[in-house]
């Protein structure tokens, strides 16, 4: 699991704060509200810094410890900002036996970052993910919601270039 504290300085905007408050109001009092609120809050901010967790705890009337406990339990929640484009290289069985490691290594080499890190320009971050359910195309990676299959390491530079130009 990723590190347990937030490294970056928090810089939330007023619009983000407003969206968060509206989100909390919408879910207040519903049973099991915490997960959907955290998921949407992460969409708003891109990650879940302690400031946001605090606001959610207060808004939903639960302890910060409970919120933090849930955030650190699930792999999807991040305490650190992610890149604009999140690269998830599948490390599921079908991909693993078809040498997904080489694809992951090439991504790390091209971007010069490690798994869990973000490029200095904030464009990319890399994760190793669980099975993406496209095992028929192994090895597979996802960049945000786009899936790329039947990869060989030499495909990586071309794919990344597409996002760099956008």
């Amino acid at each position, binding site marked *: 699991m990723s590190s347990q504290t937030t490294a970056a300085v928090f810089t939330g905007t007023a619009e983000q704060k407003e969206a968060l408050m509206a989100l909390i109001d919408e879910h207040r009092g519903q049973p099991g509200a915490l997960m959907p609120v955290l998921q949407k809050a992460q969409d708003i901010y891109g990650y879940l810094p302690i400031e946001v967790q605090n606001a959610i705890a207060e808004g939903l009337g639960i302890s910060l410890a409970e919120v933090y406990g849930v955030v650190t339990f699930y792999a999807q929640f991040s305490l650190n900002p992610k890149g604009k484009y999140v690269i998830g290289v599948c490390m599921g069985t079908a991909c693993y*036996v078809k040498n997904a490691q080489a694809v992951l290594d090439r991504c790390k080499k091209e971007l010069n970052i490690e798994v869990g890190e973000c490029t200095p320009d904030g464009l990319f971050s890399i994760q190793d993910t669980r099975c993406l359910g496209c*095992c*028929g195309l192994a090895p597979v990676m996802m960049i945000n919601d786009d899936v*790329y299959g039947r990869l060989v390491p030499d495909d990586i530079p071309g794919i990344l270039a597409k996002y760099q130009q956008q």
Partner: protein
Amino acid sequence: MYRSHILVCGGTGCHSSRSAEIVEKMQEELAAVGLTDEVQVVQTGCFGLCALGPIVIVYPEGAFYSHITPEDVKEIVDEHLLKGRIVKRLLYQETLDGDNIKSLNETSFYNKQKRIALRNCGVINPESIDEYIGTDGYLALAKVLTEMTPDDVIDVMLKSGLRGRGGAGFPTGMKWNFAKAQPKGQKYVCCNADEGDPGAFMDRSILEGDPHAVLEAMAIAGYTIGANQGYIYVRAEYPIAVKRLQIAINQAREYGLLGKNILNTGFDFDIDLRLGAGAFVCGEETALMTSIEGNRGEPRPRPPFPAVKGLFGKPTILNNVETYANVPRIILNGADWFRSMGTEKSTGTKVFALGGKIKNTGLVEVPMGTTMREIIEDIGGGAPSGKKVKAAQTGGPSGGCIPADLFDTPVDFESLQAIGSMMGSGGLVVMDEDNCMVDIAKFFLDFTVGESCGKCAPCRIGTRRIYEILTKITEGEAEMEDLDTLKELCMHVKQNSLCALGQTAPNPVLSTMQYFMDEYIAHVRDKKCPTGVCQKLLQYVIIPEKCTGCTLCKRNCPVEAIDGKVKEKHTIDTSKCIKCGVCMEKCRFGAIIKQ
């Protein structure tokens, strides 16, 4: 009425290879030649043969085009649809029989299959409730609500012998009966769409290809046990499935097939989605419910079973996506029909996800009791490279590796368990002689160490210790005694863990030790990895007979570990070698091997 229908696969696999673009292009080209009113383009769910994607099928001819790119679209429209000439060059070659084309059902991939759970995948447009209704959709719900009592439904389910497809194989009718027997009041129906098994993607395909089937079955379950609310817990990693489910729910509400007073029978039932957040243990039933409640997804001891005390403390049933997908057909066709397929104790069919070193990767649905060999060799087409298939892994991190000499085992719940594996959710990953079985065991333990929720010590600490011993073995640091310790530790974790995650985590180790002990011994005693996968045990060597002394390897070695003069045999100094593999890549004579 359209004269032709073009089906374009919109499953995740084909989607990633630009099938959406193909649909767009198809519509453009049809418009350009004025065929828009005569030819309908439908984006469907997965056809199952992901290895050939993107796939386009044109009816009424049933021409099966494979590996289509947007650039091919114009040719298909101009030749096939305008001039009526099938583009043979683009056909799946197996459907080509001299000058004729064979129907898909005659190809070796499809002819042994029996598609029930996948019946609509690749056939209808999953975003259209009308197409679902057109294939008898929601007829089972109507029949249940108007003609059957809850006891009748349970009777059919029990007689059908349907067992849970999520892994454990618990009889579905019995589960529903327990929940129904609870006092009236708030109850829940849940669907497990967390599909955590790496290598399994049948639930994804059903959700993407036939979402209404799941909604219909959940409503039937709701009526049976007396629940008015359902939840589908679906992985956030499946964006297309989430989107289509949401569309389906909205459409069903619009048509009055979900919500209040369904079909004017006074029955209320609604369904909401809950997204998972990337924790494998949340596929376990009690953990899944804890997660829907908004907590850390940790399992809790059973009893009480969820049928008595489940979600929010209320009686709850949880079934897997594929289990639900079977329900409407069982209601419509009857228990005897379902029993006529499969074996005595494992009735019906099972979907398998073929992956790994196999030619026809994709989804297949076969009657229970089909042998592994039929699935892997006849339907799957064997290993693509012509290499020898060594083993198949079923059941994911809870299952085991089945060696090729046991491939005549029929696949049903009992037979797989008897040989140290399990059905699991139906992932079937094929491995060939290039895969190291110790490394595979380590891969799975790495997975369970990461996914152990940490609540109970045998699983939290035990899996880590197992992983450490496996690491020692793959690095050549282990002694023979370690193998005994490993086995003992595995038994300990199996017997003492709280939930099935820990109880089954040692299976990949135990089964590989049972069938591939020689590989373990090679690593431990001879300090060798027979397949050359374990880096630490590798040695790059030059075969003198093949070396021409071209010096290419020597010039490319980053650490000057290679010695030799021009036109003379070269050698590698293993104490300097960092095993980067550059020399082997560069050698033009195949003179460098790793061993």
